[in-house]
């Protein structure tokens, strides 16, 4: 199982690139020009995130550098331990359904922390958590708001329960890949 996960990680991106290029060429798409044309939009898309990322990175780094983050992490440690989660990822996991730039700022803070870094157990789990779920509250507000639905019935419950399932799935996946969390 661990072998499967690391093989998928190494192979999926190159295989997808090859598949898209071969399929494009076979269908007589001018692949080079099409690529350049599509990639142009990447600059604007990323640059438009600057105001959001500046706002969130400043707030998260103030929270982290002041020691407030450590206090919250210590307070959450018993609950996190019970859920088999490292407490350092809990603030990020709580913010994930509300703001993806906010949780991205927490992810970057974990990567910058010399105790963790991107390749540590906590760093891998935080990466997977960020990648594996969506801004549930934002999506629900925008989608239902756009057509004027007032009674959303059970949609929020299902969305948040699915987010919890993604967190559980992330922990299981990282345990398969790297074994149990060190020091637990």
């Amino acid at each position, binding site marked *: 199982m661990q072998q499967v*996960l*690391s093989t*998928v*990680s190494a192979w*999926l*991106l190159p295989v997808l*690139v090859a598949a*898209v*290029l071969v*399929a*494009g060429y076979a269908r007589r*798409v001018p692949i080079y020009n099409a*690529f350049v*044309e*599509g990639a142009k*939009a*990447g600059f604007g898309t*990323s640059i438009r*995130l*600057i105001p959001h*990322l500046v706002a*969130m*990175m*400043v*707030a*998260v*780094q*103030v929270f982290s*550098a*002041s020691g407030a983050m450590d206090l919250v992490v210590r307070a959450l440690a018993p609950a996190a331990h019970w859920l088999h989660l490292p407490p350092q990822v809990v603030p990020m996991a709580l913010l994930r359904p509300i*703001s993806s730039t906010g949780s*991205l700022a927490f*992810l*970057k803070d974990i990567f*910058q922390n010399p105790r963790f*870094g*991107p390749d540590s157990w906590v760093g*891998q789990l935080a*990466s997977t958590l*960020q*990648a*594996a*779920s969506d801004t549930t509250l934002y999506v629900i507000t925008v*989608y*239902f708001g756009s*057509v*004027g*639905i007032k009674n*959303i*019935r059970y949609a929020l*419950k*299902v969305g948040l*329960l*699915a987010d919890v*399932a*993604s967190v*559980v*799935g992330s922990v*299981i996946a*990282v345990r398969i890949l790297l074994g149990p969390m060190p020091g637990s």
Partner: protein
Amino acid sequence: MIDLIWLMLFLSGIVTAAFTGRMQAVAQAVLGGAESGVALAIALISMVSLWLGLMRIAELAGLVRLMTNWLRPVGRFLYPSVPPDHPAMGSILANMAANILGLGNAATPLGLKAMQELQTLNGDKDTASDAMCTLLAINTASITLIPTTVIAVRMQSHSADPTSIVGTTLFATCIGTVAAIVFDRLFRAWSSRRRA
């Protein structure tokens, strides 16, 4: 709500710093945070450009439409209340394909279009239909093939193996999607029993 969270991150930090005597570090964090916000956005350009370029080829080659066709049986299973030939089904499947391929910017307009078309099938315009709830469940827990943003941030943070999270993400999103479908079905069954 985002206003309150943002305020609390600042306030709790500054109040804590007043007690721990780390105000100097907080002042530096304000400046450093702004700098890393910009650096992070710049770091995203590489992966986002690469991905959007590839997906433009995929689109011109008809791969996105091909994928939409593959998803047709899935759509029929997930949305029994939507006629398979209704335009709503087309938008739902295109939205699903865009989510799986990691095209967040394309997925949202397609999803909103699907909502509009589902609203035309909806008897009670103020209340979400079963199909709308399913669309939301699938959107908030989508299978992800390549998590481009996270790979870019890992590259920027000098990860030795930035794509090592592709497998774990695929695994976690499969579990999340299955859970979303199961919970959606359970709640749908409960709510229809209550109404009957």
